[in-house]
């Protein structure tokens, strides 16, 4: 381990190992499964008469194996920063040597899990804008080494490797960083209320059930208790009891949302310097990510079902690599007022979203929603009701999908603005996409059998770095309009490509 701050001159250092404390972290990370397994094993072995000594022997063996494999991994993993590249070598039997050229390094992210924070380690990720997520992962080095590496890599990327200059320039850039956006504690807690989720309650019950089985509690006892409660309930099943149960569920859901939000976005800070943004967030796992402006492929403003109506928006950008999430999206501002977003959007080089020129899609767009959201679920529920009469209760909720389906075509609009294609979609959660023409990779027009019958088409706009459901696609527009839209879009893409350097290399 090198002393921090002694040298930012790249070529001075031989191949280096990761921090030795990584071994400890790996072992500790591996052990929860072992520890959780003990009660299960105990519960199972109770009737089998397996001696306790045997259990401890197995555990000791497992621990040794984990320790040994962690040590071997540490032993065989080296990295070296050279003037024009970083070389990462790993593998015990099959050695892999990966060199990442300096020009390809897009940015350097630093991530710290709760354990790493306790002992001052950090995971460094070298983002290249290509392929696999663990392409350039150093897990883990000491925090000071992580910061040093970031400076050095930034230096070799910009081609400044002569003694001292790289470091000084980096420091100067750091000083010039301006704070764009931060989330205080009050706003953080408030935003958590909108992340209401019943999924977590289900998860908690799932864990309880797992523990229930693992600890070998008497299930019959529980069932009996539930039975007693049920009888009690049935004897005085009135509005008050129902309301209090519902209230408890909602309260738990709100709490779960707040807890999750605090864990994820505690201390969110977005800063800006030169050609990049940097954000850091997280209570236990602290993440610091650099987003190079050049990598931004599209901008997405999300307005939540409730929070959006109250004027709280979220800004995401899709980047080439660099995101943990499969969608390739990074959140630059999770919970902000539109006025706070405007300067960030402008700094990201994205044009503002203009609502007035947006054109609606075909009215037939409603039909798909009516069938998919309303008719099919209603039929399924009706069939289910014959088996489980309680399912009929869900039928009372069906007006919601009906309303969503009816409002669907009104909420889906698109336009070709000056420098970008802009699409808005969504009834409950509304999303506004802005894709600069320079980032459109290909355009696909699809027409299913029903769509052909109705004379409508779906236009898919393919961008780099992101996949998944929520792409900037335009569903169900009239074929004549689709022809004009695609023709115009392609023409603008080409006009831009021939005058401006491409962002994707």
């Amino acid at each position, binding site marked *: 381990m090198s002393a921090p701050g002694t040298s930012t001159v790249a070529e001075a250092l031989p191949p280096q190992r990761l921090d030795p404390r990584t071994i400890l972290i790996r072992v500790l990370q591996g052990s929860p499964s072992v520890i959780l397994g003990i009660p299960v094993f105990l519960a199972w072995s109770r009737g089998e008469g397996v001696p306790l000594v045997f259990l401890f022997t197995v555990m000791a063996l497992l621990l040794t194996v984990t320790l040994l494999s962690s040590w071997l991994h540490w032993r065989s993993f080296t990295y070296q920063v050279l003037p024009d590249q970083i070389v990462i070598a790993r593998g015990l039997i099959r050695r892999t040597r990966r060199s990442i050229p300096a020009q390809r390094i897009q940015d350097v992210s630093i991530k710290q899990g709760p354990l790493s924070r306790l002992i001052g380690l950090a995971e460094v990720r070298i983002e290249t804008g290509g392929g696999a997520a663990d392409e350039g992962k150093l897990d883990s080095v000491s925090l000071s080494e992580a910061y040093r590496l970031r400076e050095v890599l930034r230096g070799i990327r910009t081609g400044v490797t002569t003694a001292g200059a790289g470091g000084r320039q980096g420091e100067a850039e750091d000083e010039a960083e301006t704070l764009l956006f931060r989330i205080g504690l009050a706003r953080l807690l408030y935003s958590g209320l909108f992340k209401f989720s019943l999924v977590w309650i289900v998860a908690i019950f799932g864990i309880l059930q797992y523990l229930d089985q693992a600890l070998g509690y008497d299930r019959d006892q529980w069932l009996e208790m539930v039975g007693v409660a049920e009888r009690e309930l049935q004897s005085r099943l009135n509005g008050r009891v129902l309301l209090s149960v519902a209230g408890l569920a909602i309260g738990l859901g709100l709490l779960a949302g707040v807890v999750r939000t605090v864990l994820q976005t505690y201390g969110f800070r977005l800063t800006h310097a030169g050609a990049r943004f940097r954000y850091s967030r997280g209570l236990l796992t602290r993440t610091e990510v650099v987003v190079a402006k050049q990598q931004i492929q599209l901008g997405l403003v999300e307005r939540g079902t409730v929070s959006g109506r109250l004027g709280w928006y979220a800004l995401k950008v899709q980047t*080439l690599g660099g995101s943990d999430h499969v969608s*390739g999206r990074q959140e630059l501002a999770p919970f902000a007022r539109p006025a706070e977003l405007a300067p960030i959007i402008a700094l990201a080089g994205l044009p503002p979203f203009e609502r007035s020129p947006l054109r609606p899609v075909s009215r037939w767009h409603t039909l798909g929603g009516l069938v998919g959201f309303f008719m099919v679920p209603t039929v399924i529920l009706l069939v289910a009701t014959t088996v489980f009469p309680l399912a009929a209760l869900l039928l009372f909720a069906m007006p919601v999908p009906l309303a969503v389906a009816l409002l669907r075509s009104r909420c889906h609009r698109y336009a070709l603005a000056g420098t970008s294609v802009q699409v808005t979609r969504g009834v409950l959660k509304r999303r506004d996409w802005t894709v600069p023409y320079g980032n*459109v*990779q*290909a*355009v*696909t*027009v*699809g*027409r*299913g*059998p029903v769509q*052909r019958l109705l*004379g409508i*088409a779906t236009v*898919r706009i*393919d*961008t*780099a*770095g*992101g*996949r998944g459901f929520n*792409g900037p696609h335009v569903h169900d527009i009239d*074929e*004549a309009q*689709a*022809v004009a839209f*695609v*023709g115009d879009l*392609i023409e603008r*893409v*080409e006009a831009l*490509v*021939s005058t401006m*350097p*491409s962002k*994707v*290399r």
Partner: protein
Amino acid sequence: MAFEPVPLQPLERGYLTVLRIQAAIGWLIVTAMAAVADGFLQARAGLSPGVVAGPFIAFGIVSIVFLVPGRWRRWGYAFTERELHVACGWLTRVHTVVPVARVQHIDVSQGPIERSAGVATLSLHTAGAENSLVVLPGIRRQRAEEIRDAIRARISDAPW
């Protein structure tokens, strides 16, 4: 045929042969498995031979004679120096437009069946995530190479 921003060219007839041979191979494998099931059922349950394999053979012939040409007819392409259009799909029609300047690299490939039928496949890779590979099969090798060279010239012209 309502969505057609540019007039499309059909693929070579040779590609129809390729599609037919591929379909025939696929149906042969399925029919072979059905024949095994047939023999098994005949031995065990005394069913008359061909109960399982017969429908497969019939549907395979229908598919090769009538359905494959329909699918082949749905293919079309157009290359206008600045963009490549590829249309395909029998039930769901898909029309892809790739601006030439967005192409990252190009392959021209020819499998053994394609070579005997005198056609080649042109593959365009873009940086996109969902539709990064656009494949145009069933054009003459010479034509594929022409398009490739034209695209290559335009990519290297583009300022980086």
